[in-house]
């Protein structure tokens, strides 16, 4: 693979778009280079479930013709992307990463609204990306292959939008669309060294997704820069009559609000998350360095206490998981139990036994935890934490051990405390690369703001990226995957 091809694939989507617009490169060049990287590396990485190279190349040639004729559609025109295989896209089966479904049940009935909007903006769908079964996390055996971290294939690429984190990190596409119920965009963004956004609930239509946790499900982008994320959000945001929970609110020109510094901005470190017992020392050090960078850019940084944040973890499991289980119990779990991965079916079965009275009490508690988070948002422009408490671990070490009753609640909380307080609160939250562990694995900074505060977290993330170069470092896949050149 030529150096120029590698360099092209590792540019940010925004940089690729400028080169396409100026006709320095053609969408055909970019598509060929992206498909070549899928062909070369995905035998190991397993980021993709279904790819349609012929259709992608045909669309790239059409985009080239349109742009040459002066009909440039905007900054996503001609860019290759993939989507988590949890949303429908005509022409591709919706496998949901499972063996539970029969082949005819994977036929997509229509395009998800995000897929439709991206196509209208000229972006080109390459294919569907690997995920934990039904997007639930905890999968032990992946029917479409074990996804692997491009920085070190022995290490975890996180859950559950796993392929959607790997693919942009490996330069196989310009960006991806994932789904985040508890932390399924931020986890893969963090572990693979890309940017990932969980938008405000209702900001992006969920129509065409197969999720079933209606109080928490969100679609959001993963890409190599915050600027890319802002450009994608301008396209995919907005009310959709097909999603009754989408919000009728104007969509800002996010890309016009990125520049500047952080002077006058008040940020707060969430004490109970950032300094939780058990956080890895390298994560703590990376986070402290990130705080200094933000301070140098003009931000005032204080600490805030959210003593109920830890309860977000069991509360999300007792409510959102129960919602999911109520759907699966009627659909497949009773009559196809054996076809589920053991990690998924035991979690769903346990969730299906949560009493309605407990669910009701947990929903009340969710309101209180959310109110505590929002109260902090009233005092601060954004809250900051590390995205994960550990650097990416060995794959075998990430499998959830359900084996005893000692310290189970603290262990349950530690695994998910960085993610769940913000998903339970349904606020926008972004993960941005903030360095590497001693083993060369990505670490990440998480920035959350008030509902519909995407512009604020984009500003913080963008300014941080202007002051650092973590996001411009990419895995040398021939080396990390030990592929002969």
């Amino acid at each position, binding site marked *: 693979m030529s150096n120029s091809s590698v360099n092209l694939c590792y540019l940010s989507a925004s940089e690729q778009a400028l080169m396409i617009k100026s006709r320095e490169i053609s969408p055909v060049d970019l598509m060929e280079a992206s498909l070549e990287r899928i062909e070369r590396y995905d035998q190991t990485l397993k980021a993709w479930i279904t790819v349609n190279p012929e259709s992608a190349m045909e669309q790239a040639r059409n985009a080239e013709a349109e742009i040459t004729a002066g009909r440039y559609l905007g900054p996503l025109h001609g860019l290759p992307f993939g989507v988590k295989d949890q949303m429908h896209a005509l022409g591709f089966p919706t496998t949901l990463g499972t063996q539970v479904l029969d082949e005819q049940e994977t036929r997509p009935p229509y395009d998800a609204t995000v897929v439709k909007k991206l196509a209208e903006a000229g972006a080109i769908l390459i294919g569907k990306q690997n995920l934990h079964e039904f997007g639930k996390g905890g999968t032990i055996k992946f029917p479409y292959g074990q996804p692997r971290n491009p920085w070190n294939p022995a290490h975890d690429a996180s859950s559950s939008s796993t392929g959607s984190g790997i693919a942009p990190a490996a330069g196989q596409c310009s960006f991806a669309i994932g789904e985040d119920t508890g932390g399924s965009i931020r986890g893969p963004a963090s572990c693979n060294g890309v940017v990932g956004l969980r938008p*405000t*609930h*209702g900001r992006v239509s969920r129509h065409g997704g197969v999720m079933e946790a*209606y*109080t928490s499900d969100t679609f959001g982008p993963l890409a190599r820069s915050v600027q890319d994320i802002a450009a994608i959000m301008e396209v995919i945001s907005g009310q959709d009559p097909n999603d009754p*929970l989408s*919000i009728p609110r104007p969509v800002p020109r996010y890309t016009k609000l990125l520049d500047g510094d952080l002077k006058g901005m008040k940020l707060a470190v969430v004490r109970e998350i950032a300094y939780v017992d058990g956080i890895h020392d390298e994560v703590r050090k990376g986070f402290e360095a990130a705080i200094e960078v933000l301070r140098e850019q003009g931000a005032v940084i204080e600490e805030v206490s959210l003593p*109920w944040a830890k*309860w977000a*973890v*069991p*509360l999300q*499991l*007792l409510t959102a998981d129960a919602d999911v289980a109520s759907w699966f*119990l009627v659909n497949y*779990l*009773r009559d196809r*139990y054996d076809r589920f991965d*053991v990690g998924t*079916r*035991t*979690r769903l*079965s*346990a969730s*299906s*036994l*949560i009493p309605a009275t*407990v669910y*009701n*009490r*947990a*929903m*009340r*508690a*969710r*309101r*209180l935890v*959310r109110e505590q988070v*929002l109260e902090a*948002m009233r005092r601060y422009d954004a809250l900051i934490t590390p995205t994960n408490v550990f650097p990416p671990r060995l794959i075998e070490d990430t499998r959830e051990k*359900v*084996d*005893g*009753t000692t310290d*189970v*609640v603290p262990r*349950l*909380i530690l695994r998910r405390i960085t993610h769940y307080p913000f998903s*339970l*609160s*349904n606020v926008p939250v972004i993960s941005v690369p903030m360095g590497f562990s001693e083993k060369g694995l990505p670490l990440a900074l998480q920035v959350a703001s*008030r*509902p*519909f*505060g995407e512009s604020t977290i984009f500003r913080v993330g963008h300014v941080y990226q202007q002051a650092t170069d973590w996001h411009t470092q990419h895995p040398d896949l021939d080396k990390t995957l030990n592929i002969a050149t």
Partner: protein
Amino acid sequence: MELNVEQIRVLSEMQGLKIPEKELNNIAIRLSTWLTAMEQIETEMGARMNEVDPIPPVFPREEF
């Protein structure tokens, strides 16, 4: 709250689920963990929980 395998077997049957014997303990531990956490939440927040409705946070109506 610690549930045993027999209790999980009965509850699963009530839901129409036939769980293999070897997986009942896994499910018992998961559910016991969550319910134990809920007991701790009730201790810490229960009085306040009585004062609010369990409204899903899907239509943000805050000032933001």
